Structure formats: structure tokens, C-alpha cells
């Protein structure tokens, strides 16, 4: 009885505190398909004007689909690259007798805590020097590099949970060290790869500073930059369009999060149980 009462109290409190969020979400949705007269709170007309960006690019702006494609390429490639490097480097740091292992481990930790924004000017200069400024490849490289310390550290944590005996058994069975890693160890840390991958996709999708600084040109723009340009446009500012694009931009993240939230939790749990 008492626990029921307590649950009720908790539910009411949670409901009250989340109410503003719900109201905001609903008004966001409504605003993208309606117009409201100035001074009024109640919408008066249904319209799809705000969603026009989907089929016709406004003058001087890139098409939303090119931008979306760029965003997918950006998030996808940086994720693949991150997974490839983290899974190998994490293994090397966890299991192989590499020279300077301690130094690399400490370096990874320090880099992990380093405020990356301070590096952006250096990265800008480097990319310009090697000709990757305003190139999607350049941002991908920068993004991956900055995410690597976290990725390597997480993967190392997962590798540490795989028993040594499994590797010994593999070697004894006649497998090379690479086969042991590929066929025996990697399958054990699948939940970790999965979680890191989702984490990286979400992070790449929402990345703003790097593409804004390193690849602002129209044909390589990503959605976050596109969205920011809308709000910076002083001559032609439209809140409804801004909200519609924002919704379009956020939707995939919602979906990913809804489907994969369990997997994502393993990163923070750190165990191998998926």
C-alpha cells in the first residue's frame, strides 16, 4: 500500500517536471505545420510552407538532401574509422607487448580529458596545409582523431574483460595472433563495438563546431551547419522553417536512441553483458 502511494507521488512529480518538455515538443511539432498570428498562442491555419525546404532549396542554400547525404557520410565514415582504429589500438594496448605502452595509455587518458576546442585552430591550419580544408574527408579525420582517445579507452576496457586463456587456447590450436584477435576475441567484445558505434554515429550527427570551422562551403555542409546558417540569416529569418529543419535533423537521433538505448548503456556499464 505504502509503496503504491510512493509510486503515485513519484509519478505525479515526474509528470509535473516533464510537462514543460512535453509542451515544448508538442508546440515544436505544431509550429512546423501551422501559422500563428502575432501576439496569439493559438495556431490558426494548417500549412506545409515550413517544410518546403524538402523539395526546393532556397536561393543561395544547398539542397537539404545533399546536406543530409554529407551528414550521413560524415557520421558514417567517422564511425567506421573510429571503430577500426579503436578496436585495433585498444587490443594492442590491452594485450600486446608494444613499446611505450605505458606512455600511450597515459597519453590516451590525458587526451581524453583535453578540451578539444582549443585545438581547432591548429587543426584548421594543418588541414589547409594538406589541402583538406573545405573537404568532407578533412572533417572526418579531425572528428575521428578527437574521438579516438575515448574510443580506444572504452575498447581497451572491453578487451580487458576477455580471459587470457581464450587467447592462449587459440594460439595453442594453431591460430596466428591476428586470427586469434579476429576470430576469437573480437566476437567477445561485439557489445562494446556496437555501443561505441552508436555513440559515434550520434556524436557525428550532432557535431557542429568542426564542420562549421573546417568545412563551411555549401556543397560539403552538414545538417548542423545548415541549421545554424538559418538562424544566422538576418534578412530572411523564419522560425517555422528553423523548427521544421530542426525536427528533420533530430528525428534520426530519436529513432536510433529508441532502438539502441540498451546497447548504449553497456558503454557506461562497461561489462560484456549486452
Amino acid at each position, binding site marked *: 500500500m505504502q509503496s503504491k502511494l510512493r509510486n503515485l507521488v513519484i509519478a505525479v512529480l515526474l509528470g509535473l517536471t516533464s510537462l514543460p518538455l512535453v509542451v515544448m515538443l508538442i508546440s515544436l511539432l505544431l509550429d512546423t505545420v501551422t501559422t500563428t498570428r502575432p501576439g496569439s498562442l493559438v495556431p490558426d491555419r494548417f500549412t506545409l510552407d515550413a517544410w518546403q525546404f524538402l523539395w526546393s532549396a532556397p536561393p543561395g542554400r544547398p539542397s537539404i538532401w545533399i546536406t543530409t547525404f554529407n551528414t550521413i557520410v560524415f557520421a558514417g565514415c567517422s564511425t567506421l574509422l573510429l571503430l577500426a582504429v579503436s578496436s585495433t589500438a585498444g587490443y594492442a594496448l590491452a594485450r600486446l607487448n608494444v613499446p611505450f605502452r605505458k606512455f600511450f595509455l597515459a597519453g590516451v587518458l590525458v587526451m581524453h580529458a583535453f578540451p578539444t576546442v582549443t585545438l581547432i585552430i591548429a587543426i584548421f591550419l594543418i588541414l589547409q596545409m594538406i589541402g583538406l580544408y573545405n573537404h568532407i574527408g578533412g572533417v572526418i579525420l579531425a572528428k575521428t582523431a578527437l574521438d579516438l582517445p575515448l574510443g580506444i579507452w572504452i575498447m581497451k576496457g572491453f578487451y580487458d574483460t576477455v*580471459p587470457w*586463456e*581464450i587467447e*592462449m*587456447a*587459440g*594460439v*595453442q*590450436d*594453431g*591460430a*596466428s595472433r591476428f*586470427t586469434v584477435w579476429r576470430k*576469437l576475441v573480437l*566476437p*567477445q567484445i561485439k557489445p562494446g563495438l556496437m555501443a561505441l558505434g552508436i555513440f559515434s554515429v550520434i556524436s557525428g550527427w550532432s557535431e557542429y563546431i568542426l564542420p562549421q570551422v573546417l568545412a563551411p562551403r555549401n556543397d560539403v555542409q552538414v545538417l548542423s551547419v545548415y541549421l545554424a546558417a538559418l538562424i544566422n540569416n538576418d534578412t530572411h529569418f523564419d522560425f517555422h522553417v528553423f523548427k521544421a529543419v530542426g525536427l528533420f535533423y533530430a528525428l534520426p537521433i530519436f529513432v536510433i536512441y529508441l532502438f539502441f538505448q540498451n546497447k548504449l548503456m553497456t558503454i557506461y556499464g562497461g561489462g560484456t553483458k549486452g
Partner: protein
Amino acid sequence: MSIRLEHFTKRFGGFVAVPDMNLAVEEGEMLALLGPSGCGKTTTLFAISGILKADGGRIWIGERDVTDLPAQKRNVGVVFQSYALYPHMTAHENIAFPLKLRGIDKAAIDKSVRELARLLEIETLLERRPANMSGGQQQRVALARALIRRPDVLLLDEPLANLDARLRLEMRSEIRRIQRETHTTSILVTHDQVEAMSMCDRIAILDKGEVIQVATPSQMYAQPANRFVASFLGSPPIAYLDAKADTQGMRLTCADVLVPWPVGVGAVEPGSPISVGVRPEAFGPAFPVRLPGRIAAVESHGREMLYAVDLAGGSRLRAIGSGLGQLDQGEPVEWGIDPMKLLIFDRDEVRL
């Protein structure tokens, strides 16, 4: 195939785990490496398997010097204490893995997996994953995986340590049966003397990285090389009485009794201190050299009774047997020791 270690040395940093070991295992034999934890037995095993590199000496398998060969090329099967089955593979895939690596075609692999599964009585488990198997079943799968490529040598690292008491008994004879049927030269690492004695042809007893004695179980029990070996073998363990050598025999310190020398014990300088090892079966009401004492502890083993007796001089002896009668703690007794079965050690703990 036979295994030979010649002056094998292994160091971990500054710590010398195995200083200089010589050991030979005959073809088809099962040898136990027995010793307390930290005595270097697992180190030796892993050096033979190739997982650890020897720091000195040579290792021979048959006529092949494998000292510098990597583990992959030694053709040694290992059963790990934790079984180390691959959790994402079924039993069938686990057992097939070593053959798959060699690029043998699927049908042939399947045939030999099923053949071996029949020998190990795990045919019904082949589609299961390790998580869905009991400890004993995992053990059999691990054994099958080690045997599938017909290894020259089979190495078992405490294979029974993770099993419960009943399964341990069953697997003891199972491992022995399979080892005999496949005629594979094997080394078993264990700290359990019962396992070593019941499963193996010969035992090599290790202490601090050195081989103390290599002998058959019964030889080692009856004629231990020194006090360490005598103490390690036998349950309940051997007990010791202090004594001094005399011309006619040994004079026990605790009771001032003269015990004649057992047969085969050489001349000892009169007056030198010795210690007399009394196994539980050499102490009881029926033996001639009487020693007064008091029952200190009673343990019923069902078929047999185990008594600990505190002697008047302060030492404690143990007796085990079914004909000892029902006695209570604190009761005075005057039992004897069997002078023919005593083990005599000099002051350096070497058996005389």
C-alpha cells in the same frame, strides 16, 4: 611422443621460477607435476606448450627440439583450468576450430569431430554453446578440442579444479581412459596428491622450481626422497616424532623408548638427531612399540575412524582404520607404532 626437458630455466623479471630442471616423460605415459602453488608446475607446463618462452635449456618433443618453435607449430594440446572454450561457438565449432585453421575440408572435419565426440560421449551436446553446458561437459569439450588434431603431447592444467567432488571422481577415470585409448603422452599439473596418485603412471614432485623426486605413486608413497615428499603425499598426512640415533635403534624423545631400525636403514652416527615419520596406518592398538597418550580428536569417515592422539611427550600422531573401536575425545589410550613401516629422516630432512 616422449618429452624431455634439459636444464630448462624460466625467469620472470628478477624472480627465478624454475632454476634448472631436467625431466623426461616416456612415450604414452601420463606424468603428474605435483607441488604446492608457486612451485613452477604451471610455468613448466606452459613452457612445454610454447605459451611461455624458456630462458635457458632445451625442450624436446620426440626427436624434435621445440625450444624455439612458437606454440602454433608444436602440436601440443592443452586443457586449461578454466577450459577456455570459445563462448561464441558451439561445442562442434569449438572442437572443429583447430582443424578449420589447417584448411581441412568440411566433411572430413565433421567426421573426425563426431568420431571424437563418440569417444568422449558428448555427441548430444555438439550444437550447444559453452554457456549451456555443465562444468563436466565443458571439460569434455575442452578435452576433445585438445585431442582433435592428434597432438604429440597432451597437457592438462589442473583440469579438475573447477569441478564438484562427484564429477571430479568421474572425470578422473574418464581422462585416464581417454588418455589410454588415444595413447597420448600427457602431463597433468595438479596440487592435489590424490589426483596425481590416482591418475598418473608417474609423479614428479616439485618444490620451488626443482624436481624433488620422480617415481610411481606407490614407490613415492613408500619411499619418499625426503620429508617434503612424505608430507605432501598421503591423507591424513604423516606425523613426525623426534628421536636420537642409538647403536641399537632410535630413542624416541617423547617416551624414552628404543625402536629398532627399520630394514634397510643404514648406520647412523649415534647421538645425531633424527625425525621419525609415522603414517596413520602405522599407528594403532595392534602394533608393538607402545606409546601412552590421550585421544585429542575423533573424525568419522563412515567406513573408517580417524583418531588424533596426543602423546605424553607432546607430539601428536594420527591413526586411521576400521578396527580401532569407538573411543571418545579425552580417553587415555596406549597404542603402538609399527617399526617396520616407519620413515626415518636425518637432520637435513633426507630419508635414510
